[in-house]
């Protein structure tokens, strides 16, 4: 039971991270910096609780805010570039963050930051945040700003011709993604009790992208679904445990070939909603 709870908690944090990737992605920005933002959030929150004795919730929020501010600042130059260039910029940023933490002795350097107070209710906090995020994304979907974000993601030129300040929209989305990732990092830090720079490498950012893309990026339920499935499934595939990574990789390739839009699409959401209303 404890084991399942632990897996479920990690899944919850993964949902948060997948959504943090999704926020800027809605405006067409593909970020490989989310693990870097999580690192900033994790370290900031841990410093708050360990060094200054700030309680858990404000510490996590401070972690989010710090990451959000850094995201905002990084977002300004990031706006000028697109596609693969943005991918590389965020990748480089994520790595720099990691290397910087390796070199800060105040937070333990390469050896890691131990002694972070354990939050035993992490499960509830993580899913509480997920719930809040679901409400936010759902509201965003049918709102002026949400439509603007999707419009920018679909076609920047057409968006700007229709009166949308694309710079502002993209920057807000990018900073919001960093903010979410920062809070996810803070929650993670107080669940693991120990953080080290290795926990926030590029491959983690890649993993969040995989969650989102596997689940589907047409609607925010996709990243949520992807994070849950890809967090749980390997745990239950005990009989193929030894090969789960290879299966995971092959699954990704097959997905891209046969269903690149992901598992959850607009149509499937509509279908599910219909079933719920019908019954």
């Amino acid at each position: 039971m404890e084991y399942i709870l632990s897996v479920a908690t990690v899944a919850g944090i993964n949902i948060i991270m997948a959504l943090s990737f999704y926020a800027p992605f809605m405006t067409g920005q593909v970020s490989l910096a989310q693990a870097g933002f999580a690192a900033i959030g994790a370290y900031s929150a841990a410093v708050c609780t360990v060094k200054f004795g700030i309680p858990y919730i404000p510490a996590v929020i401070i972690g989010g805010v710090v990451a959000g501010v850094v995201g905002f600042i990084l977002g300004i130059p990031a706006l000028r570039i697109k596609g693969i260039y943005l991918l590389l910029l965020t990748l480089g940023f994520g790595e720099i963050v990691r290397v910087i933490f390796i070199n800060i002795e105040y937070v333990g350097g390469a050896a890691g930051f131990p002694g972070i107070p354990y939050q035993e209710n992490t499960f509830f906090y993580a899913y509480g945040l997920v719930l809040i995020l679901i409400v936010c994304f759902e509201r965003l979907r049918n709102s002026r700003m949400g439509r603007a974000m999707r419009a920018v993601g679909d076609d920047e030129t057409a968006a700007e011709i229709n009166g949308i300040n694309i710079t502002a929209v993209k920057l807000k989305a990018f900073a919001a993604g960093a903010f979410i990732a920062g809070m996810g990092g803070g929650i993670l830090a107080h669940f693991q009790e120990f953080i080290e720079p290795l926990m926030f490498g590029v491959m983690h950012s890649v993993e969040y992208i995989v969650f989102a893309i596997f689940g589907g990026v047409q609607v925010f339920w996709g990243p949520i679904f992807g994070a849950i499935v890809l967090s749980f499934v390997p745990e239950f595939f005990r009989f193929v445990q030894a090969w789960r990574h290879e299966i995971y990789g092959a699954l990704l390739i097959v997905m891209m070939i046969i269903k690149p839009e992901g598992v959850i699409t607009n149509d499937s959401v509509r279908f599910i909603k219909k079933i719920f209303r019908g019954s």
Partner: protein
Amino acid sequence: MFIQQLINGLMLGSTYSLVAIGYALIFGVLGLLHFAHGEVLMVGAFMGLYIILWTGLPLYIALPLTMVVTGILGMIIQFLAIRPLKKNFHLAPLLSTIGVTIILQNLAVKIFGGYGTRFPDTIAMDNIMLGPYMVSSVKLIIMGISLLLMVIFYLIIKKTKLGKAMRALAESHLTAGFLGVNVERTVFLTFGIASALAGAAGVMIGVSYSAISPFIGLTFALKGLVVMLLGGMGNVVGAMIGGLILGVAEVLSITLLPTEVNLQDIFSFGIMIIILIFKPTGLFGSKQN
């Protein structure tokens, strides 16, 4: 001392160049980021290691053999993970090559173990005096081979039909097709050549670092990307020069900057970010329109 470091930097840089050429070639021809390119390099490093260990063949035979194997690996990757993709989702190639990365990395862990494996001392590790400067013979050989490969590669690109077909593809698939270039086959061969170069780089990194692990792929993939940006996305000649520049810059940064801080990586990624923000076309111009 400074000259000594300069030479070391050039050696390191020449392997970066080999990795970056592959990136630049694939990006130039297909406009996509081949995420598993570093893993091809890693496979090449192990391949070279085991050919030398098991068969006792010398480096100058193991190297071309490895290049053939990784070249074929690259073509298999293209055939299985890139060719079947539909064109309507621009992230699909990135993600499916991430899938390839995950598979190759974990297979390597299973086969070779997750810890580092030592490269055998197949080459006499004598140091050679180049005038007043002492240089290890291994590194000299590496630089020599890298430069030789780059020259051969350059000639292929400039003079052969295949090379011209690749350059035409890099400008426009449509036009190349109208000129009679078999687009699919050329793309296929492009992956082969790029991957063969990555395999060569792998062997040489193994020889010079004298230890390899299944996780070296990502490190060198990132370096390769920085170099490609430095030289201009998709610009293969730029990638050659960019590799040398980054190698020298890294080695000098270790020598000239305070040693207690590990600035080497910050340095290269810092360069990358600065280039992306201020001159995304790279130092030598981009091949993308």
